[in-house]
Structure formats: structure tokens, C-alpha cells
């Protein structure tokens, strides 16, 4: 069993690293607000697909990495990501039998919840970002979900 988890951890760490890099990849400023939360989607995928291998620890670590790399208050993304990953883990058996559309809708709800926690912490620590733009990321993220799940599924099966 040890070997089993270890095998599954490699693609997990790799995909998380790539997603972290995508989170700070420079893009034209028009597209900046549309950038989906790649790392969040990746964490959701692993929480749904194999919660044993990483689960909440992955979520918390990834959140901390996002905090450091975005330079916001430590724990903000960690809190949001842990909460939503726990929710995703809770829903995972249902999610697997959902149609693509329902999956996207559920992911949209999770991503919106994630943004909401970020929004709340932003406000509570005195740096509210009230632009409408921040609510676009969940939409793009949800649309991207089938593609991302497909790619990660391939990676997972190998």
C-alpha cells in the first residue's frame, strides 16, 4: 500500500507545481481577470479522485503556496482551499456519477465558495477588492473543468 500511495503522489505533486506556475504566468492584462484558479481545480481533482493520497494536506499546502506567491496574508488561500477541498471530498462519490454538465455546475459552486472565502478574508483584513472581475474566474474555471479533468485523468492512469 505504501508503494501505491507513493506512485499516486508523483503526478499529484507534478500537476500541483505546474498549476502553481500557471497561477503567476504573465498574461496580457486584458486576460488577467479571466485567469482561472488552476491550482484550485487541480486540488479539487485530487480530492475527488484519490483523497487518500493527499486530500486536505495537499489543499492546505497548496493554499499556503498561493499565499506566499501572491503575497497576501498567510492562511487566506489555505483556509479557502481547505474548506472547499473538504466539501469536494464530501461530494466525491456523487460527483463521479454526475454528467459533465452537473459536474461543471458543482465545480462552479465550489469555486464560487472559494472566491467568497477569499473575499471575506480580504474584507476582514482591510484590503477589500470589490471589482466585479474577481467573480469571473469561477465561470472560466468551471468551463475548463472537463478539459482539466481529462488531462489529469490521463496522467493518473499511467
Amino acid at each position, binding site marked *: 500500500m505504501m508503494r501505491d500511495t507513493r506512485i499516486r503522489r508523483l503526478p499529484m505533486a507534478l500537476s500541483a507545481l505546474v498549476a502553481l506556475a500557471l497561477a503567476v504566468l504573465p498574461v496580457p492584462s486584458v486576460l488577467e481577470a479571466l485567469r482561472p484558479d488552476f491550482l484550485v481545480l487541480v486540488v479539487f481533482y485530487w480530492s475527488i479522485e484519490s483523497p*487518500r493520497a493527499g486530500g486536505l494536506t495537499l489543499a492546505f499546502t497548496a493554499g499556503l503556496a498561493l499565499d506566499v506567491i501572491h503575497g497576501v496574508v498567510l492562511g487566506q488561500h*489555505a*483556509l479557502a482551499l481547505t474548506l472547499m477541498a473538504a466539501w469536494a471530498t464530501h461530494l466525491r462519490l456523487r460527483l463521479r456519477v454526475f454528467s459533465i454538465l452537473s459536474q461543471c455546475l458543482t465545480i462552479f459552486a465550489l469555486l464560487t465558495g472559494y472566491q467568497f472565502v477569499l473575499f471575506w478574508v480580504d474584507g476582514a483584513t482591510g484590503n477589500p477588492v470589490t471589482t466585479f472581475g474577481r467573480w469571473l474566474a469561477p465561470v472560466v474555471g468551471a468551463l475548463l473543468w472537463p478539459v482539466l479533468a481529462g488531462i489529469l485523468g490521463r496522467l493518473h492512469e499511467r
Partner: protein
Amino acid sequence: MVAFRSTDTSGRTTGLLLRCVLYCLLALALIIVDKHYDHLGRIRRLLSIVAYPVQIAVASPFEGWDWFRESVTTRDALRADKAKLEAELRLAQFRLQRYEALEAESLRLRALRNNTAGITDRFLIGDVMDLDLDAFRERVLVDKGARDGVFVGQAVLDSGGVFGQVARVGQLTAEVILVSDATHAIPVQINRNGLRTIAVGTGDMGRLKLPYLPTSADVISGDLLVTSGLGGGFPAGYPVGTVAEVKRDPAQSLADVDVKPAAALDRSRELMFVWLRPQASSPVPAASATSGASVAPSGHAAAPAPAQPPSQSAAAIPPKTPPPAKNLPPAKTPPPAKTPPPAGANDE
């Protein structure tokens, strides 16, 4: 596989909840400690070292591409570039000729008044790393950090003028908050007549605002704004921007003034960190630290303040246009327009 997972589920439901609660409490504790205390500074610095390879890995392909493009430019393009740079250099040297003499004179005069605050001492050049930190905040990451002596609140310039100030320092990197960030404010002075006020960021890289000028203020479009050096954060006399548009609505008591920043906020790749000369002896900054703190919040600007002459804390705006001579603050009065290291820098 599937069977394994389903047995797995039932046993782990409580575990999931417990771990979720534990991690959330940990995250909340981190947020509170990071917000209210200073203990996490060192941890954050260490973590920023861990993040550094990722940042390098993301930024380097773009830098490599830039390098590649640069190295394949034609000879003609290089020649044209060289001619242009030489012309610029000549112009700059013309302007510089009198600078030394003027600086010496300024130092002498300031020494007479026992006020050497805001004179630059030394520079350090840093490169902007090609990363998007946050879509909704105006920040950049620069490749100089605590190791190079960079500190929080330090003024940052580019070749055009004031760029911003250091908001957070890592071991190897520093985060610079731009003058155009919505939480940033900087004490400025109109070069033409010495009128002092505060320039506030808008969240838009091409625009600053002067929200505290009354409609009767002597400001016209084209006016150059320079740092006033009050508050001690920024060196005095560096260009911040030029007034682009002044809208005076007779029904309002405050004018609506747009400023175009002097620094190339969206293009600069090289920034200068500035160290100010340590002050000889002056009680000024200590006194000003408290008096000016109330000016900064940008929400203050929205409430149309009645046109009574601002008395103590709001004294950033002289009620009428006073004669220029009066405006140069005597060394002893607490400078009213002290801007705290902007709200954004502190509050996180």
C-alpha cells in the same frame, strides 16, 4: 480499486471533518497572527525562498525570449538605438551640468534650516521579475530582498520618476506597491507654485488622483507634481506625474484632478531602491507621524467635506492658493501631509 475506495469512505468521514476543522483553525490562526503581529516575518521570508525557484522557472522563459529577440536584432536597429540613446545622453548631460552646483547649494540652504530630511544617499538597481502577482492589485516583484538591505516602506524610482514603495520584503525578493495602487498615497507638491497635497492611486496604472484640492486651488493641466519629501518616506523633488485634467464643478467643494504618472508603471523593467540620508537632528518626523495618519484613507475623499478651512489633520489642502513663498514649510511645523507607508502596505 472501487471496492477499496468505498470501504475507505465510510471509515474516513469523521476523520475528514476533524482534519478539515483542524486545518481551518490553523489557517485562521495564521491569518490573525500574520495580520496583527510581526512574528511571521521570518517564516514568510523562508517561504519566499522556497517559492523563488517556481518564480524563476516561470519568469525565465520570458526573459530568455527577450534575450533571444535582443540578440537577433539587426545591425541597423542597433545603430538607430545607439543614436537615440546618445541623443538622450547628451540632453541629460546638458541638464546635469548645473545639477552638482544646485545640489550643493540646496544642501547648504537646508543645512541652514537644519533640515536635511528627504535627501537621497544611495541607490540600488533591481530588476522587475516577469510575474503577475495579483490581477486586482498593483504590485510587482523585484529581484532584490532583505539580503541586499531592502526594507519595508523604502522608496522605489524608475527612470521617469517615482514608481512606488516596498510593501513586503523576502530574503531574495521584494514586493513593490505601485503609486497607482488604490491603497497608495504619496505627499506631493506642485512644482510651479509649491502647493502641497496628496496624490492617491486609482487602481489604474495610467492615472492618479488629487482628491484633496479645493475647487479654488491653483492647479492647471500640465502642472508637474514632485515629491514634497514630507513624511520622510520619499526623497524630495522627484517627479510623480503631470496634471492631465482638472474638472471643477461649482457645486462641489473639491476639484476633480487627474494625474498622469511620470514613471512608466506598466513598462519599467529596472527600478531604483533609494536610501535617504540619515537626518542630522530634527524633531519633525516624530511629531508628524501622528498628525498625518488620518489623511490617508481614500474613503475620506468621497465625503464632500464642507469648504471650511481645514484646520489640523486635514490641513493637507491650503484653503486658498497661498503665495508660493508661504508654502515652503518652515522646519519646525509638523508637516501636515505626512503619508503613512500606504494603507495597503500596513494592513496585510
